[in-house]
C-alpha cells in the first residue's frame, strides 16, 4: 500500500501551471485539464481514505528548512479529520468546476479562471495535508492568494478589485496572529509538528496566548466576528468561486485548524471557551443581518458566517465530532445553495431578491434543489443539517452552557426564517419585475442534483441509524471520553420545532399577506431595522477606525519624512550655503582687507620713501653716507 497522499496537491498545481502557460491557446480545453486533475485528486483521496482504514499513518518526505539547531522536515499527515476533509473538498471541487464550465462559458479569461481554480484546489489540499504549522501557514497564505485572485477576477469592476484587496488584507491581519502564535510555539515549545502538540500539557499562560493567536488566524480565515467584513464583499467574485471558496472549503479551513489542534486547545481551557463564545456571537450576529439583506448572494454569505459560528461554537464547547460533522454537512448544502443561487442569477442576471419571484415555475430542478438545500440548512429531520446541528445543540446542552444554548436556538430559528424568506421571495409568489427565468443548461443542473442527493443522505452517516459511523471514524484511535453517543431525543424534538416555527413565520410574513406585514414591521422597529440593514455599520466603523487613519498616518508620515528629515537635510544644505556666504564675506572683508591693508601700508611707506628720490645726486650721496655713519656709529658703540 504505497503512500500516494503527497501526490494529491501535485495534480492541481500541475493543472494550474498548464493552464497559466498555455491558457490562451488551450482555451476551452483548460476546463477539462483542471477537472481531470481534481478528479484524479478525488480518486487519490479516496484511495488514501481506504489506506488509512487499513492503518496507513502519516509520513515525512524531505528536509525543507534548517533553523539553527532544529531542521524542518516536510511531511504528510493522514488521520481521520484529513481524510474526511480531503474527500469532501475534492468532491465539491470537482462538481463546482463542472458547474462553472456552464457558468463561465462566455468569459474572456476562461482559461485563467480554471488556472486559478486548480491553484486553489492545490493549495487547499496542501493545507489539509500539511503536518506542521509552517507548511500549513504557507498553503494558508496560498489559499488566501487564490481567494484574492478569484474575488477580483473581473477586475474591470473597481468594486471587485477593492473587495479582493479587502479580503486579502483582512485575512492577512488574522494570519499575522497565526504567525506570532507559530513563533511562540517554535520558540517556547520547540515544536512545530501537529503530532507533538499533544504532549504540551503544561497549561502555561504563554501557550494559552499562542492558542488564542492561532484561533485569531482562524477568525480571519473563517470570517468570524471581528474579521468577517470581507466575506460579504467577496460575493463580487463569480458564483462558483463563492460556492467553492467562500462557502465550502476555504472558510472551513479556520474550523479545520481549530479541529486540527483541538488537543492543544482543549488542554488550555480558556482558549476553548473563547472559541465557543466568538462562535456563538458570530452565529447570532450574522443571522440577524441575513434576515434583512436583499442581495441573494450576501444573504447566503451571512448564513455561511452564521453556520461557521455554529461550528466554532460546537468545537468550543468540546464537541469535536459535532463540530467536524457539521463542517462536512454544511460544506455540501451550502455549496448547493450557492450553485442554485448562481444558476438563478445566471438566468435572470440580477442578484436583488426584491426584483425576483415565481422562479420555481420556470426553473424546476434549480427550484427543487434550492428547497432541499434550505430544508437541510434549517435542520428539518431527514436532511443532513438536522443531524449535525442537533449534535451541536446537544453538545452545548450536555456541557452546560445555558447562555450559548439560547443563542444557538435563536440562531437556528433565524436560520430557518431567512432561508425560507429567501425561498418564498425568489421561488414562489408573482415575479416583481419583468424577469424571464429559463432553466440552466444540463452541465449546471447535473452537479446541482448530485449535491442535492448528498445534502439529503450525508446526514445519515452520523445519525444513530448508522450507529454514529462518522463519530467513531473521527475518533478512530483516539480516546474519546467527552461525547456520549446516545441520541438526545429532547434536543432533537426541540430543534425540529424551532425549524418549523421559523418556516411558519417566514410563510406568514412573505406569502400570506405579501408585503403588508414586512412594511409594518419595518416602520415599527425602523431604528433597529436600519441598524441591522446596514450591517451594524461595521464596515463604516472599520473604515473610520482603521483604514482612514492609516491613510492619514501614511500621508502624515510622508509629509514628516519630506518635511522633517528631508527638511533637515535641505536645512543642513541651506545652513552650509549660509555658512559659505558668511565665510565668503569674512574672506572678502577681513582676509582680503588684511591683504589690502598691507598693500596700503606698503603704499604709504613707499610714498615716504619716494620723496627721497629727489633727483639730486647729493641727496643720494647724503643718504649713503648717512647709512655709513650709522653703521660705523653702531659698530663703535657695540664694538667698544
Amino acid at each position: 500500500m504505497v503512500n500516494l497522499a503527497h501526490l494529491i496537491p501535485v495534480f492541481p498545481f500541475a493543472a494550474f501551471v498548464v493552464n497559466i502557460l498555455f491558457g490562451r491557446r488551450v482555451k476551452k480545453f483548460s476546463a477539462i485539464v483542471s477537472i481531470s486533475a481534481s478528479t484524479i485528486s478525488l480518486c487519490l483521496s479516496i484511495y488514501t481514505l481506504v489506506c488509512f482504514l487499513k492503518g496507513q499513518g502519516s509520513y515525512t518526505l524531505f528536509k525543507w528548512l534548517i533553523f539553527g539547531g532544529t531542521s524542518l522536515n516536510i511531511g504528510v499527515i493522514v488521520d481521520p479529520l484529513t481524510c474526511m476533509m480531503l474527500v469532501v473538498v475534492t468532491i465539491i471541487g470537482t462538481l463546482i468546476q463542472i458547474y462553472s464550465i456552464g457558468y463561465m462559458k462566455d468569459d474572456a479569461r476562461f482559461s485563467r479562471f480554471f488556472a486559478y481554480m486548480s491553484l486553489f484546489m492545490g493549495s487547499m489540499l496542501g493545507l489539509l495535508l500539511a503536518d506542521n504549522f509552517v507548511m500549513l501557514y504557507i498553503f494558508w497564505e496560498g489559499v488566501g492568494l487564490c481567494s484574492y485572485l478569484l474575488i477580483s477576477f473581473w477586475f474591470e469592476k473597481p468594486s471587485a478589485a477593492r473587495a479582493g484587496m479587502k479580503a486579502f488584507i483582512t485575512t492577512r491581519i488574522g494570519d499575522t496572529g497565526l504567525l506570532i502564535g507559530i513563533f511562540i510555539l517554535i520558540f517556547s515549545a520547540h515544536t512545530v509538528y501537529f503530532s507533538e502538540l499533544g504532549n504540551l500539557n503544561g497549561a502555561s499562560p504563554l501557550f494559552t496566548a499562542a492558542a488564542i493567536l492561532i484561533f485569531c488566524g482562524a477568525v480571519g480565515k473563517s470570517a468570524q466576528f471581528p474579521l468577517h467584513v470581507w466575506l460579504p464583499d467577496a460575493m463580487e467574485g463569480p458564483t462558483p468561486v463563492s460556492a467553492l471558496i467562500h462557502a465550502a472549503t476555504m472558510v472551513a479551513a479556520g474550523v479545520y485548524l481549530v479541529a486540527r489542534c483541538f488537543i492543544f486547545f482543549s488542554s488550555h481551557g480558556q482558549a476553548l471557551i473563547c472559541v465557543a463564545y466568538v462562535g456563538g456571537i458570530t452565529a447570532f450576529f450574522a443571522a440577524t443581518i441575513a434576515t434583512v439583506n436583499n442581495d441573494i448572494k450576501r444573504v447566503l454569505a451571512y448564513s455561511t458566517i452564521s453556520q461557521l459560528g455554529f461550528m466554532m461554537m460546537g468545537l468550543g464547547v468540546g464537541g469535536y465530532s459535532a463540530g467536524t460533522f457539521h463542517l462536512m454537512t454544511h460544506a455540501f448544502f451550502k455549496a448547493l445553495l450557492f450553485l442554485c443561487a448562481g444558476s438563478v442569477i445566471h438566468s435572470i442576471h440580477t442578484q436583488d431578491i426584491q426584483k425576483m419571484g415565481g422562479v420555481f415555475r420556470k426553473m424546476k430542478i434549480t427550484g427543487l434543489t434550492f428547497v432541499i438545500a434550505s430544508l437541510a440548512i434549517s435542520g428539518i429531520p431527514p436532511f443532513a443539517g438536522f443531524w449535525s446541528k442537533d449534535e451541536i445543540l446537544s453538545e452545548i446542552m450536555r456541557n452546560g452552557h445555558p447562555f450559548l444554548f439560547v443563542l444557538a436556538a435563536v440562531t437556528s430559528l433565524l436560520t430557518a426564517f431567512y432561508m425560507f424568506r429567501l425561498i418564498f421571495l425568489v421561488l414562489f409568489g408573482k415575479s416583481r419585475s419583468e424577469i424571464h427565468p429559463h432553466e440552466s443548461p444540463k452541465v449546471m443542473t447535473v452537479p446541482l442534483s448530485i449535491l442535492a442527493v448528498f445534502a439529503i443522505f450525508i446526514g445519515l452517516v452520523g445519525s444513530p441509524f448508522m450507529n454514529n459511523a462518522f463519530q467513531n471514524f473521527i475518533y478512530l484511535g483516539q480516546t474519546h471520553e467527552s461525547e456520549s453517543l446516545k441520541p438526545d431525543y429532547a434536543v432533537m424534538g426541540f430543534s425540529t420545532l424551532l425549524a418549523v416555527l421559523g418556516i411558519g413565520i417566514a410563510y406568514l410574513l412573505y406569502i400570506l399577506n405579501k408585503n403588508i406585514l414586512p412594511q409594518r414591521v419595518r416602520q415599527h422597529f425602523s431604528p433597529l431595522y436600519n441598524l441591522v440593514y446596514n450591517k451594524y455599520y461595521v464596515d463604516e466603523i472599520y473604515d473610520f477606525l482603521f483604514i482612514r487613519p492609516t491613510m492619514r498616518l501614511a500621508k502624515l508620515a510622508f509629509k514628516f519624512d519630506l518635511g522633517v528629515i528631508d527638511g533637515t537635510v535641505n536645512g543642513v544644505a541651506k545652513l552650509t550655503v549660509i555658512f559659505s556666504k558668511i565665510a565668503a564675506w569674512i574672506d572678502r572683508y577681513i582676509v582680503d582687507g588684511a591683504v589690502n591693508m598691507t598693500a596700503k601700508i606698503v603704499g604709504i611707506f613707499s610714498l615716504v620713501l619716494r620723496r627721497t628720490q629727489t633727483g639730486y645726486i647729493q641727496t643720494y650721496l647724503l643718504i649713503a653716507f648717512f647709512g655709513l655713519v650709522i653703521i660705523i656709529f653702531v659698530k663703535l658703540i657695540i664694538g667698544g
Partner: protein
Amino acid sequence: MMNGLIQLLSSHGISHDFIIKASFYFIAALTLVFALLVVLSRHIFHAAVYLAVVLIGIAGVYLYLDAEFLAVVQVLIYVGAIVTLFIFTVMLTADTDAGTFGGTLRRISAGALVSLAIFFILVRVINMVTIWKTAVAGASVNLSQLGKSLMTQYALPFEVISLISLAAMIGAIVIGKAEKR
C-alpha cells in the same frame, strides 16, 4: 730743504722746536680756512682759486712729513695742471646762475651734520688707534730710494697708471668732441 729753512730761523734766537710747531699749525689752519672757502664761496671762480691755495698749503704740510718730492709733485701737478683745468672749465661754462652755492637750508644743515659726524668718527678712530704710539719716527725717505723702488718693486702699478692716464686722455677727447649732427 726743510732743515735748511729751520736752521735759518733758529739762528734768530727762536727755539728750533717751537718754530716748527708754530709754522705747522699756521699752515694747517690756513689750509682749513681756504678749504672752507672753496666749499662755501658763492662764485665758482673764487672757489677755484681758493682750491689752488689749499693745495699749496697741503704741499707745505708734506714738507713737514719729510716728503719733499711729493710736495713738489703736488704743487706741480695738482696746482699747475688740475686747478688750471678747473679754471678753464669754469670759464667755458660761465653759468649765469647766481648763487652757485645754496640750495635749501635744510639740505645744507643735513650735509653739515653728516660731515661733522664723519669728522667726529674719524677723530674718535684716530684717538682709539694705538699702534702708532709705539712707532718710532721713521727715517726720511730719500728720492733715489723712492725712484728705485718705483721702477723695480712697483713697476706694474707704474705701468697701470700710465694706461689709466692714456685712457683718461682718450676719454676726455671723445667726450669733449662736439657730436656730429
